[in-house]
């Protein structure tokens, strides 16, 4: 499915899950991380996934991002049945369609900002120029700096540039501001907001921080492996107006 298609059929969900469960077995203990989660994400949706630690939000994100297999239930990316894909096909799925942003940036220290982004553009079918991606996140001046020469916020913005440079249909951000102070965090959220607006990427933001949920279209609250609450924000805040 291409970006253009998803725009035409706006009623079709970009990502769909039905009765997803996930059970981790650690020794003799079974941990039920997901206990039957169903959801639909639409193209250009920006969704916040809220919930306390252990509520299952990361597990859900991992399954949707093709990093982990569900124990039961189904997930579809467009018409593709994600829960049927093997490791090779999941790799291909992440490579072509998903952009990840991590809490701890996970930049490659031996590559400059541009090169970290180029790492992904080199293996994508239709990427934007690495420099353009960095321009979007406001780092046009720091193209040739290594991670060690960048602040935390700048590093996270490089990570965001890296995630969007492939023009993904889906961007998954796991606590993107978790390691940053609020001022820097807001800079990072602004970048996410801008990209979402410019590229119409379906975006999922995992966060502890309920304030951040105010900038999204929809909020899913998880607890004990279920979606316990879902609501649509009637008034979306701008990232720059958030405070915590």
């Amino acid at each position: 499915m291409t970006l253009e298609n998803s725009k035409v059929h706006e009623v079709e969900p970009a990502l769909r899950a039905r009765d997803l469960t996930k059970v981790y077995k650690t020794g003799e203990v079974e941990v039920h991380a997901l206990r039957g989660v169903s959801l639909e994400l639409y193209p250009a949706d920006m969704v916040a996934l809220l919930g306390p630690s252990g509520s299952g939000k990361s597990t859900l994100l991992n399954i949707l991002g093709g990093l982990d297999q569900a124990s039961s239930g189904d997930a579809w990316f467009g018409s593709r049945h994600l829960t049927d894909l093997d490791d090779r096909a999941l790799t291909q799925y992440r490579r072509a369609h998903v952009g990840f942003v991590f809490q701890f940036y996970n930049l490659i220290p031996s590559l400059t900002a541009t090169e970290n982004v180029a790492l992904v553009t080199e293996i994508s079918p239709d990427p934007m120029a690495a420099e353009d991606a960095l321009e979007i996140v406001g780092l046009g001046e720091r193209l040739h700096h290594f991670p060690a020469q960048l602040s935390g916020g700048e590093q996270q913005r490089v990570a965001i540039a890296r995630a969007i440079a492939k023009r993904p249909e889906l961007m998954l951000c796991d606590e993107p501001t978790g390691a940053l102070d609020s001022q820097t965090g807001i800079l990072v959220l602004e970048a996410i907001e801008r990209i979402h607006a410019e590229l119409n990427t379906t975006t999922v933001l995992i966060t502890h921080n309920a304030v951040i949920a105010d900038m999204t279209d929809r909020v899913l609250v998880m607890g004990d492996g279920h979606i316990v609450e879902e609501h649509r924000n009637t008034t979306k805040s701008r990232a720059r107006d958030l405070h915590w």
Partner: protein
Amino acid sequence: MRPLNRKLTRDLWHLRGQVIAVAAVIASGVAVLSMSLSTTEALGETARAYYERYRFAHVFGRVQRAPEYLADRIRLLPGVQSVSTRVVKTAILDVAGFEEPVIGQFASIPERGEPELNALALRTGRLPRPGHADEALLSEPFAEAHGLVPGSHLRAILNGHWRELEVVGLALSPEYVYTIGPGALMPDDQRFGVIWMGRKALQAAFDLDGAFNDISVGLLRGTDPDPVIREIDELLSDYGGAGAYERANQISNWFLMNEIKQLETMSSILPVLFLIVAAFLTNMVLSRLITVERAEIGLLKAFGYRNREIGMHYVKLTLAIAGIGIVLGWAAGYWFGLMNTRVYAEFYRFPFLLYEPGPNAFILAGAASLIAALLGTINTVRAVAALPPGEAMRPPAPTMFRQSLLARTRLFLALDQPTRILLRQIARWPLRSFVTSAGIGMAIGVLIVSIQWLDAIDRIADVYFLQAQHNDVTVGFAEARAADAEFNLAQLPGVITTEPMRTVATKIRFGSREERKMIRGVPPIQNLHHVYDADGHPINLPPDGLVISTMLGELLNVVPGDIVTVEALQGRRPTRRIPITGMFETYIGSPAYMDIAALNRFMGEGPTINSVHMRTDALQRPALFRELKEIPMISSLNLKAAAVQTFHDTMAESMLIFVSFFVVFACTLAFGVTYNAGRITLSERGRELATLRVLGFTRAEISYILLGEIGVLTLIALPLGCAIGYSLTLLISGAFKTELFRVPFAILPNTYGISLLIVLAATLASIFVVRRRLEHLDLIAVLKTRE
């Protein structure tokens, strides 16, 4: 168990792959050293015990013919414990089914009872019965080479008459550990053998009734042989004594001791090298292993553990790993040592084997490894323990990389990001990268040094046999003969051309030094048997004076221009001062040459020869051999082709044993280095690689980054290894020098190739093992955890 100790045992289990790899490297070093030392120790001990149990004599002498009562006079000399006289002669044998004439050394044994000295180890059959003049005992290797057993027969020309002898038994003797025929370089059991017969039978056969021509003397412990030798020479001088000599100069013993010394050199240089490499690698691996544990160290400190306790924890880890390696190495060293010694014992034909290695070799190897491992640990633990706990628990800040000039080049810009990652990793830690390359390089170097022994042997054979010798048959006479003997031989079928040689047994003295030496008299310009130096240049002899090998020059401490005193030990026994007119380098032995005319003048004799080099027509050789078998005055016959063969067989056999062990150990080194480099890199950069997997990189693509780094380091190691091998060979060929051999510096291109291929194979094997770990990268953990 204290929690830290529990952590230790679990860490050991968790790190088992690396523990085994490091332990294997340590074990290789320990095993090679303890194997080599215990082998040479066992060989020395076995030889010593063999000599003692079988009463190997201390002094030996030859005479033309001496009356039996002289033995009693010798027995009365101070320091003499026992005396044994014999008849010892060489003669031509005809062994059924063997075309060439065979040279037999006949030695008498008492009619009844055991010889007082040089006792025989009877292997099978029995001793000849008194009064049975046709019964003979054969040396076991000779009998085996011809398939002779008790009950077989062979023919011999004894004093001009063919005699049919019956084999009644097979034996070994401490006197013939190395059975080297006259004029030969290596034992050739097909063409030279020892035959023991009753004394009366040999006295009758060689017209020595009531007389002897060979004497062996046993000395009381601690007796200096020199005064005894002088007395014996004095007593025997009227009877054609050719000069008594001590055990050190007895030919079999001289060869055996040279061989053991050669093995000792090998076992002192190469294994030490191994141990150094192993220690170096242990150090490198352990220090990186501990650096990875930095967070744990910070945590322990945060709990209140003292630096010393943390230090001890890692010291114990090191001790455990090194301990495993050392114990494995000891076991392997003992076992390989035993196997190795067995092979050698069989090669030397010792009738028994003493393998009771003392603790020294093992303690030495173990201690060296342990110290190296500890040194590697202590520095690193100290560095990590010095960090404040908070800082130690935080991951190290992202490593600082900088744009190098290289990074701005067009070539670099054309590279993809994964390639840039691996190149920058190498460039960022040049020392660490170099150490890995150096480790692999050392494995290559050790292989080159080991394998080049075989090249060196080829080179020796090439110069000694192929370049220098253009004759294919050499015939020696028991006594010196008039020069027309050469003419008579030239008439034999198939003989194309001949060249005479005269050898004279002498003592050469200079200052306080003295060497017994056979001086070879040859024509000033040789056509067949060249006087050749190590570089392959023929040497023309001046009309006067001695031209000697540099080895003999060293033994006598002379330089060209010095004048030495030469005392002939045969004929009229002249003594004269002769100048050294030239010196040349040789790989084998320590020869001395003179112009044959000058040598004959020195002896006060007319044109005289005692051996003839011949170039023959291969097609007519059977006819030639038939004729030669009928010439009783022949006491030696050497065929170049057979000599080349036995040289290769003997050298290759004794060297290959060692070399093959070294190859195995070098592979362990290469595997250990690359496996550990790979594993440590994986643990240091697992998060980075997992991130790439999350970003959509395939396993093959991240393998490229991880293994590409090892690959590049291996590529760097290849030329480095060749350079290391070259330098080590240079070092060793200089250090390796016995009176018998000098090892030339010779590395054939093949040797480089084989060494590189072996190390590449070991590297690939370890890469394959590391690659399998990439299957299990935890992709999810990287999203949440911070290293």
